[in-house]
């Protein structure tokens, strides 16, 4: 009878526990998710790094106690913790932590050997209450790089030689040099064209040739001087230029408007000289004005005016 009563009490207690746990739901659990993500546990050699990641989801209001994480530096004789980074994210369904560890191992085994990254206890705080979550040790195997029987060379035990420095890289300098040279060449060609130094492109040297002809002419050769300048204008325009057609000339070559007064004087003077009554004697000053006009036209031609 007593046994039956005891059984009833046990069943009732179990039902109460089941009901309570069902009512509580998962949302009130302090630690909702815990994952330790690790790489392959084999095939490591001395000096290799090993990354571990812990993903945690906890109830809002709880906080990770950072001091429960292992600190950077040497953890033991052969293990070093190079980096620890914690990323925290608050969400409606709780708080998420991502903790990344970068270990580096310096064990030199004689044969394949199992080692273990030590475990530790993560702690969380809420209103003075502490929750602990163990992080299990992580076993992995390391292998040697050298054969067991020591290899010898002429200097004794074989070791890898010094690292010779690589030759200094000149790629960037060569690139900058080529760029500067390209720009310089482009501009030089452009200027050579403007100054009439490029063969096969005479349109930029009509006043240069006229200037060269005018250079050695005296007052006695005024007709030749006038003719040379007329030829230059005609050559530039592609057809004869007259005083009454100067407007048309300016339409095709607006840059010559800056010497419009001098041009008008020149065509007027030329008309008077060739078709006038010859009552006015040519002056030395006139020839100088023609030469100056030619010089100005030359400056316009090469773009410096």
């Amino acid at each position, binding site marked *: 009878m007593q046994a039956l009563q005891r059984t009833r009490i046990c069943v009732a207690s179990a039902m109460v526990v089941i009901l309570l746990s069902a009512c509580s739901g998962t949302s009130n659990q302090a630690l909702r998710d815990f994952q330790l993500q690790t790489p392959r546990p084999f095939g490591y050699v001395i*000096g290799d790094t090993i990354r571990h990641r812990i993903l945690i989801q906890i109830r809002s209001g709880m906080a990770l106690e950072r001091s429960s994480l292992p600190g950077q530096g040497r953890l033991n004789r052969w293990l070093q913790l190079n980096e620890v980074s914690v990323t925290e994210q608050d969400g409606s369904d709780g708080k998420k932590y991502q903790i990344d560890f970068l270990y580096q191992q310096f064990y030199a085994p004689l044969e394949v050997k199992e080692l273990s990254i030590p475990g530790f206890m993560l702690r969380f705080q809420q209103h003075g209450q502490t929750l602990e979550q163990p992080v299990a040790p992580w076993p992995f195997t390391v292998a040697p790089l050298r054969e067991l029987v020591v290899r010898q060379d002429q200097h004794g035990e074989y070791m890898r030689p010094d690292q010779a420095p690589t030759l200094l890289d000149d790629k960037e300098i060569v690139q900058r040099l080529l760029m500067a040279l390209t720009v310089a060449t482009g501009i030089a060609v452009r200027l050579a064209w403007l100054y009439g130094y490029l063969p096969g492109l005479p349109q930029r040297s009509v006043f240069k040739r006229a200037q060269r002809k005018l250079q050695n002419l005296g007052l006695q050769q005024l007709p030749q001087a006038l003719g040379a300048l007329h030829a230059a204008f005609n050559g530039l325009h592609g057809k004869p230029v007259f005083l009454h057609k100067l407007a048309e000339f300016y339409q095709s070559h607006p840059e010559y408007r800056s010497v419009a007064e001098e041009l008008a004087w020149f065509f007027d003077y030329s008309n008077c000289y060739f078709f006038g009554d010859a009552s006015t004697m040519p002056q030395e000053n006139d020839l100088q004005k023609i030469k100056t006009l030619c010089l100005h036209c030359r400056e316009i031609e090469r773009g410096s005016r």
Partner: protein
Amino acid sequence: MIRKLKHWLLWATLAIALLVTLTQLLQLYGLAGQNRLIGQLLAGKDVSGDDLATSAPEVRMARAVYLSQHQRYDEALATLNLLLQQSGSVAQAQTRYNLGNLYLRQAMEKAQAGNINEAMPLLGLVKQAYREALTLDSDFWDAKYNLEVAMRLLPEMDRITSGDGQDDLNQKTQLWTTLPGFPRGLP
């Protein structure tokens, strides 16, 4: 006015481009000279101190390699110590590795001569240098290999504990934290 400005701008640009060309040519010439020095040192020919005065860290590194190969360890050490100040993790790792090699050669020579007591502290420095090189570059395979050489020469062993934490704390000296061993191969 704008035409005139454009024209003189062309001349100014040409002057700048020519200036840049000239400076780059000079830099290229200087670089070729530095590379010639590196080649000379790596071929086993020393260079004068004047050439090194204004040289690049790479030339100094080549000189350190040359000095180390010619058993001029003190000069090599001084050169490498100067290079430890330079920036760049690759260069830093390389310097530490060469420093480790320098100590390792000396340690091996001393061990072969029977001076184990002098070899042991050097091997401690060797391991430290290689560890630092590997912390900077964990894919530095030559450093891994040579660290293993050093570890075989001077293995590290865990401290012997009695199982009683208080006793261990009271123990002033460590027992066999390192065990010298210079293997000569199996019979």
